[in-house]
C-alpha cells in the first residue's frame, strides 16, 4: 500500500450531507474485476448529464456545470471537503478506489460511515474527522478563496490552513501506523499466525460445530 505521511493539495468543497457510496460510484461500474480505472466515473450521476456506462470514454460526455468538481477552480483538487455521514450505504471498496483514482488523497468531514472510513485506510486515502464548526469554517474559506489549499500531516495529526491555523485530528494508532509506513496489514496479521492457530485449535475442541462443512 502507498504510504501517507504529509500532503498538501487544492480543496474541493462538496456541500451535501449523507453522500452515499452509490453516489460516489454507481453500480454499473462495479462489474469491473480490477481495482483501478474508476476515477472517470467518480460521482458519475452528479458529474455528467447523461447516464454512464462501463467501458465508455467519459471525456466525450456532457458535464454538469453545476457540480463542484467540474468548476475550473477546483481542477486538480486532492482534498475533498465533505459534510456529515460521508460514505454511507454499500460496503463497496470501489468508492475509495474511485476517489483515489481521481486523485484525492484526503477526505475531511464531520463524520463518516464506518465501513467507508475503514476502507479508505486500506488504500492510502486518509479520512479526517473534524468538528462540524471547523468544517463550516473550512467550507467558507475554500469557497471564498480560489486555489485554497490545506496541508495535512499524519505524523503530527494536523490540518493546517493557508493562514497557518492548525487543527488537530484523532486517528487510531494501528491505522495511522499502517498508513504512515504503507504496511500490508495481512503481513502484519500473519506475524501472529501461531496465535491464530492455537485459538483455532482450542475452538475446534470447545465449539466443533463451527468447523463442520455443509452436507
Amino acid at each position, binding site marked *: 500500500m502507498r504510504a501517507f505521511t504529509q500532503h498538501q493539495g487544492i480543496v474541493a468543497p462538496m456541500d*451535501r*450531507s*449523507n453522500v*452515499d457510496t*452509490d453516489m460516489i460510484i*454507481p*453500480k*454499473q461500474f*462495479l*462489474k*469491473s*474485476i480490477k*481495482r483501478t480505472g474508476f476515477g472517470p466515473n467518480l460521482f458519475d*450521476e452528479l458529474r455528467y448529464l447523461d447516464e454512464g456506462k*462501463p*467501458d465508455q470514454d467519459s471525456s466525450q460526455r456532457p458535464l454538469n456545470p453545476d457540480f463542484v468538481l467540474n468548476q475550473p477552480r477546483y481542477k486538480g483538487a486532492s482534498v475533498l471537503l465533505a*459534510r*456529515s*455521514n460521508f460514505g*454511507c*450505504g*454499500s*460496503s*463497496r*471498496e470501489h468508492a*475509495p478506489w474511485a476517489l483515489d483514482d481521481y486523485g484525492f488523497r484526503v477526505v475531511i468531514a464531520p*463524520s463518516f*460511515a*464506518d*465501513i467507508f472510513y*475503514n476502507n479508505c485506510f*486500506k*488504500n492510502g486515502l486518509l479520512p479526517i474527522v473534524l468538528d462540524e464548526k471547523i468544517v463550516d469554517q473550512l467550507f467558507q474559506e475554500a469557497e471564498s478563496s480560489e486555489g485554497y489549499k490545506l496541508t495535512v500531516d499524519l505524523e503530527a495529526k494536523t490540518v493546517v490552513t493557508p493562514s497557518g491555523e492548525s487543527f488537530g485530528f484523532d486517528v*487510531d*494508532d*494501528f*491505522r495511522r*501506523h499502517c498508513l504512515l509506513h504503507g504496511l*500490508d*496489514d*495481512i503481513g*502484519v*496479521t*500473519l506475524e*501472529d*499466525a501461531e*496465535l*491464530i492457530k492455537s*485459538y*483455532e485449535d482450542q*475452538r475446534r475442541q470447545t*465449539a*466443533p*460445530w*463451527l*468447523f*463442520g*462443512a*455443509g*452436507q
Partner: protein
Amino acid sequence: MAGKTLYDKLWDDHLVKQRDDGSALIYIDRQLLHEVTSPQAFEGLRLANRKPWRIDANLATPDHNVPTTDRAKGIEGIVDPVSRIQVETLGKNCDEFGILEFKIMDQRQGIVHVIGPEQGATLPGMTIVCGDSHTSTHGAFGCLAHGIGTSEVEHVLATQCLVQQKMKNMLVKVNGQLGKGVTGKDVVLAIIGKIGTAGGTGHAIEFGGEAIQSLSMEGRMTICNMAIEAGARVGMVAVDGTTIDYVKGRPFSPTGETWDAAVKYWRTLHSDLDAEFDKIVELDGAEIMPQVSWGTSPEMVADVTGNVPDPAKEEDPIKREGIERALKYMGLQANQAITDIMLDRVFIGSCTNSRIEDLREAASVVKGRKVANSLKQAMVVPGSGLVKAQAEAEGLDQVFIDAGLEWRDPGCSMCLAMNADKLGQGEHCASTSNRNFEGRQGFGGRTHLVSPAMAAAAAIAGHFVDVRELLN
C-alpha cells in the same frame, strides 16, 4: 461489575489478540462471497502468493449480476458480457481454491444473505463477514455479522481474522405488540426514521423488546438487514427458542451430541440483565404504522396515513435543503398525501424481503385481486432457488401470476439494478428493498421502501394504500 451485552460476549469469544494500540484480532467463523466484491481479493491473494487460511469457512454464490429470467441457459443467459465475466471469475476463483460455490444453475443459489441462514451456514454465535453491507442480516441469529470491503475480504481469506476496534453498545427496544398488517420492515423503517441514517454509527445495535421477540426469524432478519441503513454495521437479536427451532435440521447445522452442546452454548447468547449500553432507544410497537419512504435516504419515511413533509417547516437549513433536494428528485409535492403517490413498478424481493414469509404476506394480499392497469410492471423475485421451490410447492407462484405479477428467478435483481431489472428515468417504484438512494434502482429511478404486504397492496391499487384496509 456490570454484566455483558450480547456484543461483548461475541467479541470476547472471538478475540485472538488484544493489541496495545487498542486494535484487536478477531477470528471469523464464516465468510460469504459473491461475484462483485471478491475478484480483487482473490487477485490480491494470487499476487502475494498466499492461500486461503481455512477453505471450509467460506461459502460463495453469484447473486448481484444474475438474470432473473431464462435461467435454464445458465451462465450463457447473462447478456451483459461484463456481468458475465464477473460471474465466471467467481466460479474460476472458487474452483481454483476449492471453495464451495452454489453456482447459477444450483437450486441452492440465491442472495448470500438468504442462503446463509437457509443452509444453516449461519449459526448462532458465529462471526460472519461478507463484502456486502447487508451482512448485518445474520445478526438475527445472535451472530456478530457485518459488511467489509474487498481488502478485508482478502484479509479474511488469508488470515481468518480481521483487525477491529471494538464498537459501542446500543439497544433499540421495541415494546409491546405490533398491530395487524405491521411487519418487521415497518419496524425497522420506523427505527431509522427516528434515529436517522447515522444514528447507529460506531455502534453495534441489539434489537430487543417484546415486539422483536415476537417476530419470526424472517422478521428479525429484515430488521437486522437494515441496521446498516441506521449507520450500524452490526445489528443483532438475542438467541431464543425461535432461533434454535429455525436452525435445527439444516444442511450445515450440527447434529447429535454436537447439536446438544451447541444449543447449551447458544442459550447463553443474550445480554445479561445488568448489562450496560452506551445508548438506548425505545419505541412503542403498537404505535408503529405501515411505513413508506418518500425521499432519497432511508430515514425519509412517513406513516402510510401521513403526508410528504413540507421543507418550509424544517428549521435546520441543511435538513431543509436535503428535503428540498429529495422532493425535487422524487418529483413529489410538499404536504402531498402518501396515498396519492402514483406508481410505475412494484418490486418484491432483495436480501431484506425475499424469504418465504415475505412471499406469503405479499401473496395473501394479492390473492383473488388484480394488479392495477396503470402499472408497467410488478415482479416477485424470490431470495433463493429453495425459497422459489417452497413458494411453488405452496402455490404462491400461481397466486402472483393470476394477479398479474411476474414470477422470477432468484437474485439481487432490482434492489440495485446490476442486472437487467431496473427502473426507467422518473419512474416510481414500491420496493421491498433497503435503499432509496438516487439512481439506486436505475438512473433517475424513484424508490419507495415498503414492506412486502404494502408493496402488494400498492400493486393492486396502482398507488400507495394502507394495507390494513385490504386485510379487513
